[in-house]
């Protein structure tokens, strides 16, 4: 088994839509994949983000906003435990996603 992080990237304009119920969609998704989901959460919007930039010499600068500006913003994540990438892709295809996409990142194995 291997762990994968599913990063949910969404065009934030969908949050304004009243015809979708994200909470219900994600509850249903969690129920469908309860056996493989290790964790996950939704995130507050990009207007609440804070970035700490470091230059590698101990200097840090705190700024308002996302690390990288883009149309789609990470709006949540799931950590799953499945046999392989094909299984991870199958779960990712089932994540409630409105406009955007799911980035699948294998979690590093530590011995």
């Amino acid at each position, binding site marked *: 088994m*291997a762990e*994968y992080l599913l990063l949910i990237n969404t065009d934030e304009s969908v949050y304004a839509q009243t015809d979708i119920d994200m909470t219900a969609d994600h509850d249903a998704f969690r129920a469908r994949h309860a056996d493989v989901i290790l964790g996950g959460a939704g995130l507050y919007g990009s207007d609440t983000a804070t970035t700490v930039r470091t230059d590698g010499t101990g200097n840090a600068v705190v700024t308002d906003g996302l690390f990288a500006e883009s149309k789609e913003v990470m709006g949540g994540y799931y950590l799953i435990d499945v*046999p*392989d*990438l*094909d299984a991870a*892709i*199958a779960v990712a295809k089932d994540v409630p996603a409105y406009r955007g996409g799911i980035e699948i990142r294998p979690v590093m194995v530590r*011995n």
Partner: protein
Amino acid sequence: MSAGANTAAEVAAAVADAHRREWAFVLAATVRVTGDLDDAEEAVQDAYARALETWPARGIPANTGAWLTTAAKRRALDLLRRADVSRRALPKLVGIEGAAASAPPSPLGARDAPDADDAENSVVADDRLRLIFTCCHPALAFEARVALTLRMVCGLTTTEVARAFLVSEPTMAARITRAKRKIAAAGIPYAVPAEADIRERVAGVIDVVHLVYTTGHTAPEGTSLSRRDLTERAIELSELLRLLLPKDRDVAGLLALIYLTEARRASRTDADGDEVMLEHQDRSRWDRAYIDKGLALLATAVDGAAPSRLTVLAAIGAVHDCSPTWEQTDWRRIALLYDTLLAVWPSPVVELNRAIAIGFAESAQSGLDLLDGLAVEPSLVRYPYLQAARAGMLVRLGRRDEAVAAYDEAIALSGNKREQDHLRRQRGAAGGFSAFG
């Protein structure tokens, strides 16, 4: 072949033959032992090197694939024993553990690799399919899929793959290494995909094989019109897919297209290696066996299925193959097939070919009008065939000066010397003279 000494030339030929026929089989079986593509590759290479060393004295074995598999597996076990476990930063390939446990490699003992027992190796046909699907996984970049398939399934060296795709060897080596790393780190399974995904995944494999074929059919650069090394690998890959997936219609369509195109290979170039246009080809030299096999496969592929890019291309090839002379070509049917192709696979190159077909089905003027309309297509601006096709229509309309100018443009745009020579001869026939010959 029998036990006993063989000449170096016999051995070299046998090893080359085994390399072409058995590489995927040997590698796929060895991956079971290593659980890692890199180690398996090294072990298989070593087995082929050992064959070159030992076969001259001991004789070429009756079953070269089995001999090589046994030698490669033994070498793989050596590598695994010697390897420091902690050096392994990447996980093993996913999906081989269960099967590997149920079919352990044969115990070691004899100094020389004996012919392995066939029972063990007969299950491995399915492993080649695993290897193909792993190399063509959609999580890999398309160019990496093509490179990996040629390296791992066909056994081309990195140098050969680099040459085929006109990139430097370090670039190609990096591309292949990165792809292998991703397979291990991302957990791309060494497995045949689930039933629900198989059609989509087979389509991905077909795209890779088709690209290998088309790249070989008209080499984009160089001094020979086609690259037999690539077209032969594509034929072998398609035949292997057909063998492993006998019920898949898309695979049948791919092989139909390749056979129906390959049927004309002998007449495509003259004794000097120069290109001969379809119009002037000696149709008696077309390969009837390929045509018959291609037509039968095409019938299988289209039976009740919606047209696909490959089956329509195959059908166009079939119209040419079945036409007794150039003059009797059913251009209306070809033009209609290009209409269908445009619907399933819109592309400026398809529009170009449709224009040529209409130029023959209707008139040179209507063909030329359509071609001129395509001149603004950004993707065709540097495409030599557009100017060559225009030149052909202009010749038929008696507008020789314009035809010569169009040939000159086509020559300047082509990167293949044979193609340029051919265009020069056509320009000569159109009445142009040039100091450059």
